């Protein structure tokens, strides 16, 4: 058994709540680990897809260089 990492206390560490979609999409479309999934030839195109999605959700993808992704 791996020890249960104590850093996040089990229980209501995350509030029970419905998060705003716009906040969630910031994180899910511009954050997160980026992997080249396989079917994701698809994902290579997500950049393009995001451009049109952006018409709807202009907040999502920072055009600014991403400091988190930019490093080594």
């Amino acid at each position, binding site marked *: *058994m791996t020890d249960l990492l104590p*850093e996040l206390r089990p229980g209501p560490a995350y509030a029970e709540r419905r998060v705003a*979609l716009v906040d969630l999409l910031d994180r899910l479309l511009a954050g*997160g680990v980026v992997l080249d999934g396989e079917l994701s030839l698809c994902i290579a195109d997500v950049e393009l897809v995001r451009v049109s999605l952006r018409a709807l959700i202009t907040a999502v993808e920072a055009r600014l260089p991403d400091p*988190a992704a930019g490093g080594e």
Partner: protein
Amino acid sequence: MDRREPECGARYVYAVVRPGAAAERLAGLTGVAGLPVRLVETDRLAAAVSDVPAEEYSEESLKLRLEDLDWVEATARAHHAVIEALGSGGAVLPLRLATVYHSDDRVRDLLREREEEFGALLTRLAGHLEWGVKIYALPEAPAPAPVGATTGAASGRDYLRQRRAAREHREDAWLAAARVGERIDRELAGLVADTRRYRPQEGRLAELSALPGVNVANVAYLVAVDDADRFRALVQEIAAEDPRVRVDVTGPWAPYSFASGAS
């Protein structure tokens, strides 16, 4: 059992975690499209996955689906629910939406190839949560209302003066918001492990919020769990000082904004 042939299936990958305790957090949980979530493990790492029909995640399908806001929302919320379930038990490395592999073996290959990087990230993120801080300028907030403005019929010069005052007031709101942002960055530096700036929110989705104001800063902060209360209190304290500025704090989030490494 109507299991799909591996060749026809695909693995939607939500997150990378340490193996072990994560498994019990996934019991009974449903992921994207209401599908069950399970772990694909190596010795050191595990990925939370759902078995999805490959054709729904082909390049063509995905392109169409990402244009469909209902699908995007349902998928994002399902993805998020899995991340939160995993995160309540330990460090979690969320993947970007709609990352799909062909098979368990391919997922394991990935975990092994990037074991060192993922392990280091999980260690770095352990004990931390992400908080969103959105700063809004409130140009409509109580302007220094010129006397007589309510009854109208002011002279032309009065009118121009009022216009100018209103414009300056509006600019003041932006400057005030920028100052609040700088103060938060400066005064909370000691509590913040990392910072990531998103583009300010605008557009239709952002407008769904009934609250007034123009978003001028949209920042994610990585904060140790033990510092969370102080962090929030200080942000609120700084925010409360200027009526032309509103600050929304969201979270705690799993460390979505800090999962891509660097630093």
